[in-house]
């Protein structure tokens, strides 16, 4: 039990030094507890809250690079909505995220099911599957850039050789639909391991008895997946979809390296357009407005999804 300074004084013993008093103060539960979370709070404020606040401030002002501007309210948001390139970007972002996310969910669960089987070299295979997620995106996308090159595309070369397509093959990065398909393909390739490994963790937690019981009851493999596995991995799947929605909407590297938003702005996403307008073009106000435009919608998605997951 700690002995306070008054007790020591009453006992005629010398009082504690400054250091002991400091230690005593520090060891109080409410001080110590808050003290422990201070570094995390400082980091969050400095690295998340402050830049976020600045971005909101920029988006509401007529701010150009190196030239602070006045408060203009929602003018930047109104201006970008009136701009055809932004409207195109809005459409691109939903198409990109919708298709990429759907593919990642379906393929991710499928891959996770495959990986959960008792395969030989299971650990090595799982490690290899993670590679696309581990390699720096800018670097791996450069390899894809070569694979989609108009002259030296290995994708086209292979497809022509196996008579899947006729020469010269699609111009992957030069035509709107193909370019969108290319950026989606690379995004799926890169994001799939995250889905697969996380869902795999969820699958591992599903008790085998449930499957055995379903099997005894005569459930088909599809029935076992639909009525046993899927409901049990729903919470994990919900979290992964939540994260992936945010990451996919905010993708930058893949589009910037492969198409820089082209051809004719048909692959621009919020991040790449914000970069072009805010940094290359110097209009920080509009750049910030573009990057924050989707924030309220994403916040709603996060809110409802988290509520749903909690209920589950």
């Amino acid at each position, binding site marked *: 039990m700690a002995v306070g300074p008054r007790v020591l004084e009453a006992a005629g013993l010398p009082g504690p030094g400054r250091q002991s008093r400091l230690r005593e103060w520090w060891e109080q539960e409410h001080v110590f507890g808050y003290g422990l979370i201070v570094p995390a709070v400082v980091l969050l404020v400095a690295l998340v809250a402050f830049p976020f606040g600045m971005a909101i401030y920029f988006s509401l002002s*007529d701010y*150009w*690079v*190196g*030239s602070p*501007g006045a408060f203009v309210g929602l003018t930047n948001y109104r*201006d970008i909505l009136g*701009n*055809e*390139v932004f409207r195109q970007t809005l459409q691109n972002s939903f198409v990109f995220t919708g298709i990429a996310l759907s593919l990642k969910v379906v393929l991710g669960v499928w891959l996770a099911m495959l990986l959960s089987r008792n395969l030989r070299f299971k650990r090595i295979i799982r490690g290899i599957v993670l590679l696309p997620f581990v390699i720096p995106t800018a670097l791996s996308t450069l390899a894809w850039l070569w694979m989609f*090159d*108009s*002259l*030296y595309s290995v994708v086209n070369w292979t497809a022509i050789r196996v008579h899947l397509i006729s020469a*010269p093959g699609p*111009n*992957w*990065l*030069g*035509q*709107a639909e193909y*370019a969108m398909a290319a950026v989606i393909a690379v995004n799926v390739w890169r994001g799939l391991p995250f889905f697969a490994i996380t869902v795999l963790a969820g699958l591992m937690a599903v008790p085998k008895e449930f499957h055995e019981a379903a099997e005894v009851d005569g459930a088909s493999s599809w029935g076992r997946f639909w009525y046993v596995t899927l409901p049990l991995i729903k919470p994990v799947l919900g979290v992964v979809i939540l994260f992936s929605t945010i990451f996919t909407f905010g993708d930058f590297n893949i589009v910037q390296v492969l*198409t*820089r*938003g*082209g*051809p*004719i*702005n048909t692959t621009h996403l919020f991040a790449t357009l914000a*970069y*072009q*307008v*805010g*940094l*290359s*073009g*110097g*209009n*920080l106000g509009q750049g910030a407005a573009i990057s924050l435009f989707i924030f309220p919608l994403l916040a709603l998605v996060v809110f409802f999804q988290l509520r749903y997951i909690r209920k589950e």
Partner: protein
Amino acid sequence: MDQTAPRSIARRRFLRTAAGTTAGMASWLALHKAPAYAQKRELTFLSWNHFVPASDDELRKQAEAFGKANNCTVRVDTMAHLQMPAKIAAEAQSQSGHDMYRTAGADPFLYENLLVTVDDLVAKVGKQGGGWYSFAEQSCQTKSGWKAIPWFWVSFPGTYNMAHFKKAGFDHPPKTWDELLKQGKVLKKQGNPVGIPISHCSDAHSTYWSVAWSQGAKVLEADGKTPGIVSDKTAAVIEWYKELYKDAMEPEVLSWDDAGNNRFILSGKGSWIHNPVSPYNAALANKQPIADDINHHNSPGGPAGIHSAPPNLSMGIWKFSKNQELAKEFIAYLFQKQNFDAWIVASNAFNHPPLKNLADHPIWARNPKFAMLPKEAEYAHPRGWPAKPSEAVQRIDDNYIMTDMVAKAVNGMPTKRAMDWAQEQIALAVKGQLKVG
């Protein structure tokens, strides 16, 4: 316990030392000053990854020599040119970074308030060099003085494969854009299309301005504020692009970056591109046999004459730099005749001097494939012409408005609608300029 005593002392000593070090480092950071023993002036220069890498090697060599002679260090950092605008914007915004950087186009207007006025340096160097080319001068001279010093420009000739032209029965390369269209149709049928990028890259701009001016079209009126894109002449330019795209090029031009056309001609497939001499230099450096077939000719013309929009590079010094005088000395050093000459040689005629007296280097006369390059200066204008360079012009380029207008048209958008779209985007770029001004 005895055993713990020394450990506790060591820990205290460690804590004391660490605290002292931290305090010392904090004071350096607070004072923005290195400790006395480490003080040596360091000048930092941000430039691009040159298309002829030997040119960067020579620049670094000269930087080192200057450093030795002036008891300082000059650090030259280079990066991909398409990433430079964002990096420069970040330095401008944070008011920190390199002391000086390679500006491009109308950058000095975009950062007019943040760059040091270099009138004194320009006067000194310009006088020694016999005066500046007008297009280079206009790119740096703002209302508040010279905000950068012209460094070099890059001629933008036609680059063609002589063997393909000969095979198609042409005894000369195109003198006009219309002739290019006619020849291109034949060349494409032969399996050797021509190529002009219609994509998000700088070469696409350079060619658009050239074609548009040759047709008599403009983007902005001379006042620099009124969009002037909607006209019969621009419509003719777009129609020309549509026909060229359909009958003389392949869709890959829609996906090219700045190296796309280089790869195209070096692959042996392409017959003609509008580009500096870098593919030829690369073929020579790599001992590719195709170097023998590649040749150059002056940029084609049109009803309004021959016009060219060569990439125009300059050097600007940030106002936040603590080494402004040292930067000026370094720039003056780069312009010393023997240094500039060495730099031209290292680039194998890619770097053209903006000073008239330095343009007489024998490298152009010595090689018949380069002989016509200096003449390109006579056709050159800064982008935006007849408007003066401005931040609006820079923004028009940075946002790829002209390129996207053409791309929309070749992909099926009616010409009038594509022009209206560009007009709207140009008005937005100008509006930005008016806000800042």
